[in-house]
């Protein structure tokens, strides 16, 4: 776990770059993380990011791509174009939510 400065705020991120406390997220932080990942956030990006934050608040886990696509106007194909290479993980990183999990 290390401290990282995004848009003037210091937050803790884990080894893989995910924020450890989703409550400390702000849109400015999200934008700064995205820039670091080489992504400029447009309207469709925000739709996905906002859904991920809301869903995490309800379920306690970051949603997978199918769930994001089922609940927004963004298809899985579009997610791959908006967040190239591993959109599930990238959206979670930008949204300040944990990495989507598996058991082994």
């Amino acid at each position, binding site marked *: 776990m290390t401290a990282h400065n995004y848009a003037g705020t210091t937050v803790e991120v884990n080894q893989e770059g995910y924020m450890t406390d989703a409550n400390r997220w702000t849109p400015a932080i999200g934008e700064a993380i995205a820039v670091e990942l080489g992504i400029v956030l447009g309207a469709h990006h925000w739709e996905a990011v906002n859904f991920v934050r809301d869903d995490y608040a309800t379920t*306690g886990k970051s949603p*997978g*791509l199918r*769930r994001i696509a089922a609940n927004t106007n963004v298809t899985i194909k579009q997610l791959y174009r908006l967040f190239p*290479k*591993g959109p599930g993980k990238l959206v979670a990183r930008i949204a300040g939510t944990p990495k989507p*999990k*598996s058991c*082994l």
Partner: protein
Amino acid sequence: MKNLVILGAGTAGTMVANRMVKRLSQREWTVTVIDPNETHLYQPGLLFLPFGARDEDKMVRPRAKTLHRKVRWVKQEVRKVEPGAKQVELVNGDHVSYDLLVIATGTQIRPDLTGGLLGDAWQRTHFDFYTLPGAVALREALDSWNGGRLVLNVVEMPIKCPVAPLEFLFLADDFFRKKGIRDDVEIVYATPLDAVFTKPLAASRLGYLLEEKRILVEPEFMTMEADGRKLISYDEREIPYDLLVSIPTHSGAALVQESGIGDELAFIPTDKHTLAANDLQDVFVLGDATDLPSSKAGSVAHFQSEILADNLLRTIRGEEPLPDFDGHANCFVETGNGKAMLIDFNYDVEPLPGKFPLPGVGPFSLLKETRTNHLGKLFFRWLYWHGLLPAKPIPLGAKMSMAGKKLLSPPDDSAASAA
């Protein structure tokens, strides 16, 4: 007379029915199970069929033999659940009322959700081993296959038995070596996950198995379609194959969709710890039908059923259900060559080394390949039919225990990603 109704008589439904019928007074409660299928399938046996096992007759039992005689079995298909009216509607139009409902309708593979998977290529170059007919067809195909590129693909998560893809790969390596054709076969694992082992300790302790068995890994592969000769991902990567073993997208039962009570894959939103359905009064969910982040596995159904039984009794007494389920799972992982591994974990604790069930003594070793573990897996079928399904008292904690486990941190440079 009050009614405890259980939908589905798979592993979870059968266990909870058999458990509850022994704990509820026959004068006050009827325990009803609704399931249209004549037989009960022992699913862990499916893994061995593609590689030449021919004991499918021992994997199937008449359902009547698996249910306690006091359980009322309604051999009908359910159309939908009507939680407002506290009843379920059957496909034949009848209704069954409930005072308490347990939904244990499981999960099914949905090859129809991936373009090109079904159709001409299905059971010609595309196979599954998650169903009995699928595993048998794959056995016939592998029996006469002379080699080429075999790709095992997990389309998306969640799947039942998340270790089964690994077991398949390890047993495939064994199988082709014994046939003397291992050098003529390329075994490729295409997975949507970013590594074969995503938990750091497992990755550092078991990564050698992939190298030793020469398994090529294509991580972060999100399959969009299959065309009979290659997989194509959403980000336009391609993986060619001569033979595709697909573990397709899984969904909950159609009746969940029909009732409007499931999520985008028809899994039912369930409380992680009490097993109560999140938005439905007097309804609990068990086994693969939930949306819980716990693995979809038989051991999970077993541990859940113990906790659910207690919570059903609390609910009947007018008490609140307790948040006792911790996501405990305990799974054998066949590694080939007559050996297996055992992993024991829960929502919060990754698989750790140690001994199970008795700390220090075992006899099973956690996160380590041993012959004893393999024997354990073979003995398991007997235990399933004779101990677990009938809900006989078995001294395994429903909650995961940390006793005898070693909290090791992985080496600093062990990256979770393979290849």
